[in-house]
């Protein structure tokens, strides 16, 4: 723990506007840059999801931006692909980890900055470039890719003949994801180095806030997973541009053209993709789990129930996440015996997830719950996590996946547990840390209205999708008119679309609250929530080197709330035992 010799970090912020706000080396500015990047991506991604919902219910509606105003089947797939890619990579992977993590990890461990500030800047700008390349793919001839965010080969490998968007659009998609991998790898190294080397005096591993554990383990996962995806992207690019055949088998006849590729395996892409793809689910949710534990503890005024169990279960999830990718491939043609192994391992990963849920309930138990907007989102997260997690128990069984695979049941499942739950964690984090980031509070009343509309809204969107799945409605269908048994589902789709518009509308409250409160919100004290961790020990706005040269010493664990004998119901980590006021 050689705390302060590490990074070269001048106590004075750089003077120039460009060095301060654009090419900044400051983890706080970079964190904000990531958050704004994610906010832009989520806005586009949400608008795209509304186009999906509009098209499914009113296919003849004229929508601005499409040829003749009509969303064609290929447009629909472009929209679906872009929505998935933006949300998974540029929102769920980016904001909880690189956004909030960048901003608060160094402060929570008592460090002046990330271990490698220049690499930090480079990761952000690489990620930014990846986003630009992805968005640019919408404007090239043929448009953007139609192969879904999973880009299964050979559809993604054989080029323009497989369909519109599979030419340059798909190439740019692959380049974008490869760049994103690069950015994420650099970021992961930075998070690992920082957590291991820059903790302040007294901050042992078992005194780390669970947020830090979440970010640290996520970085471990990212380091191992994104390397594999990067390799897969390079192989796919070679197949597309250099006529190799990693993923393309012999004798393909696509659109009447006999291809000259030979010897590749489409399943290889799926194995590589999901070897990344499943840890990716946890890359999206582990930081959220940390944030939720942190917020639940703060506003229950209680220590996190079973802190060590939380750390071990996070680690177990991280470890097991590399052994379950095959559950995405039960019906892919992979060896059916391996399906059983993947099935059991997937059910086993449900155990640490259940442990976390029990411990969250245990944290609430006997507490003194303050219903702040942040806390509402944290409680909502627990409910969503239970619901989304239990549908996973169905999908983890290959016999049931035989029916449910690639239906809306899966869409309902992963949106609840990966999408919406992670977004609830981001909302909880936003309302919680906003006072530290901007010195002002977000409006609590607006925040609570935002929560209730969103909480009810997302359940109304994603619960009915499970019933669509029972009827056998396949995902990625631009129309349900060609299949007789789907015709009766119009009413359900209609309900979902209305709920989606309602929920999206409610997000305007958040945008307004976020940007309005930066300038006009109620001024915040240094420690408005009476919380214990180090980010609340520094003044607001946070000094350029976080601690203005006075690096703290940590004396205790991170969640010392309502300790018997103490005057206050919280004891910050950095207060020396002798200085704690007695009751």
């Amino acid at each position: 723990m050689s705390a302060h010799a590490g990074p070269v970090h001048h106590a004075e912020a750089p003077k120039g506007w460009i060095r301060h706000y654009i090419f900044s080396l400051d983890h706080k500015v970079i964190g904000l840059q990531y958050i704004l990047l994610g906010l832009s991506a989520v806005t586009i991604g949400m608008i795209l999801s509304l186009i999906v919902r509009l098209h499914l219910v009113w296919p003849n509606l004229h929508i601005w931006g499409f040829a003749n105003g009509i969303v064609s089947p290929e447009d629909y797939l472009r929209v679906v692909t872009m929505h998935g890619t933006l949300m998974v990579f540029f929102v769920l992977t980016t904001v909880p980890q690189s956004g909030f993590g960048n901003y608060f990890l160094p402060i929570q461990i008592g460090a002046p900055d990330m271990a490698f500030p220049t690499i930090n800047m480079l990761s952000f700008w690489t990620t930014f470039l990846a986003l630009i390349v992805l968005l640019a793919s919408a404007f090239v001839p043929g448009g953007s890719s139609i192969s879904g965010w999973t880009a299964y080969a050979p559809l993604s490998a054989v080029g323009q003949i497989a369909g519109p968007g599979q030419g340059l659009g798909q190439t740019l998609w692959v380049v974008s994801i490869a760049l994103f991998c690069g950015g994420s790898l650099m970021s992961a190294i930075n998070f690992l180095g920082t957590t291991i080397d820059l903790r302040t005096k007294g901050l042992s591993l078992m005194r780390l806030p669970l947020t830090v554990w979440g970010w640290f383990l996520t970085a471990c996962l990212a380091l191992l997973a994104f390397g594999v995806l990067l390799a897969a992207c390079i192989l796919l690019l070679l197949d597309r541009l250099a006529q190799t055949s990693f993923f393309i088998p012999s004798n393909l006849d696509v659109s009447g053209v006999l291809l000259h590729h030979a010897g590749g395996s489409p399943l290889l892409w799926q194995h590589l993709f999901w070897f990344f793809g499943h840890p990716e689910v946890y890359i999206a949710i582990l930081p959220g789990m940390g944030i939720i534990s942190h917020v639940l503890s703060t506003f229950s005024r209680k220590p996190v129930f079973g802190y060590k169990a939380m750390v071990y279960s996070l680690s177990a999830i991280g470890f097991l996440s590399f052994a379950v990718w095959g559950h995405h491939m039960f019906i892919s043609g992979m060896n059916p015996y391996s399906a059983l192994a993947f099935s059991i391992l997937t059910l086993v990963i449900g155990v640490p997830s259940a442990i976390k849920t029990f411990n969250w309930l245990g944290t609430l138990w006997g507490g003194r719950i303050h219903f702040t907007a942040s806390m509402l989102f944290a409680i909502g997260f627990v409910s969503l996590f239970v619901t989304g997690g239990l549908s996973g128990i169905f999908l983890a069984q290959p016999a049931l996946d035989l029916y449910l695979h690639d239906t809306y049941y899966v869409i309902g499942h992963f949106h609840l547990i990966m999408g919406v739950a992670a977004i609830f964690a981001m909302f909880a984090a936003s309302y919680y840390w906003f006072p530290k980031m901007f010195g002002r509070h977000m409006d609590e009343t607006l925040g609570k209205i935002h929560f209730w509309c969103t909480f009810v809204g997302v359940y109304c969107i994603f619960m009915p999708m499970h019933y669509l799945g029972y009827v056998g409605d396949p995902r990625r269908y631009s129309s349900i008119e060609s299949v007789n048994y789907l015709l009766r589902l119009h009413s359900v789709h209609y309900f979902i679309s209305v709920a989606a518009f309602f929920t999206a509308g409610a997000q305007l409250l958040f945008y307004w609250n976020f940007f309005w409160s930066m300038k006009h919100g109620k001024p915040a004290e240094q420690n408005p929530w009476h919380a214990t961790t180090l980010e609340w020990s520094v003044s607001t706005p946070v000094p350029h080197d976080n601690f203005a040269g006075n690096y703290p010493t940590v004396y205790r664990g991170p969640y010392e709330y309502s300790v018997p004998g103490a005057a206050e119901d919280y004891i910050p980590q950095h207060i020396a035992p002798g200085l704690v006021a007695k009751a």
Partner: protein
Amino acid sequence: MSSRKSCAGSAVAAVMFAIVLLILVASTLFLHMDHIWWFPPAITPVGHQIDQQFFITFIVTGIVFVLAQLALAWMVFRYRDQGRRARFVRGSHVLELVWTTITLVIFVGLGVMAAHAWGEVHFGGPSPGALQVEVTGVQFQWNFRYPGPDGKFGRIVPKDIDASVGNPLGLDPSDSAAKDDIVVPDLYLPVDRQIELMLRSQDVIHSFFVRELRIKQDCVPGIIIPIHFSVSKIGDYEITCNQLCGLGHYHMHAMLHVLSQADFAKWEKQQEAQNAQ
């Protein structure tokens, strides 16, 4: 945070949570039991096994779902800020051990039980004398090939693939075994007979799905994947593609006609006669 203000906000939020979570639990249970939107009846023995497994899983997860959501609602209501100090508890090794063991046993137990139905579908082959049909996916339609009177599938030559001249699969004209092969755009099967489908694709990945069979299987170019079953109910069922295969994915559709054994024999004769012309 003045404590009086947070008390006032407390009751409202706590009651709201209780209401929303109760509605969630009640509506979910109702919709799962009323079967408004539900699976069609299964038509294969393994289909019934799968339904049984679904039911067991539903009971187990349903109980957990109800208990967990109601526990959350109760905690939130019961422990809303009423001015008293929170109880100082760090955790409980006993509880951790108890809930870890229980969930491990339940989850893994479900997985072990489900293995049987999966094995029925994928381990071991069809019984001897099964009717073999080759299923080929191509953007954006299905082709079904029967071996014809000689019982042998003819050779396929990819360069001969040409749907416009009536050879969508590329059957080799010089192979005598290919001459009597029957190729049709819908699937006809006899009832109560062991069937083996051999799934393949000409271009990208497709997925063969018939709801009533309870079987979905990707068709992967470069490999042939067999599945087997026997159907116990005469009728017409829809075949859809379930793996994104391009812009026409949503209309890649065919019918499965399950005929009585006599009707199927008649249909086969008819096709053979047509082929001979």
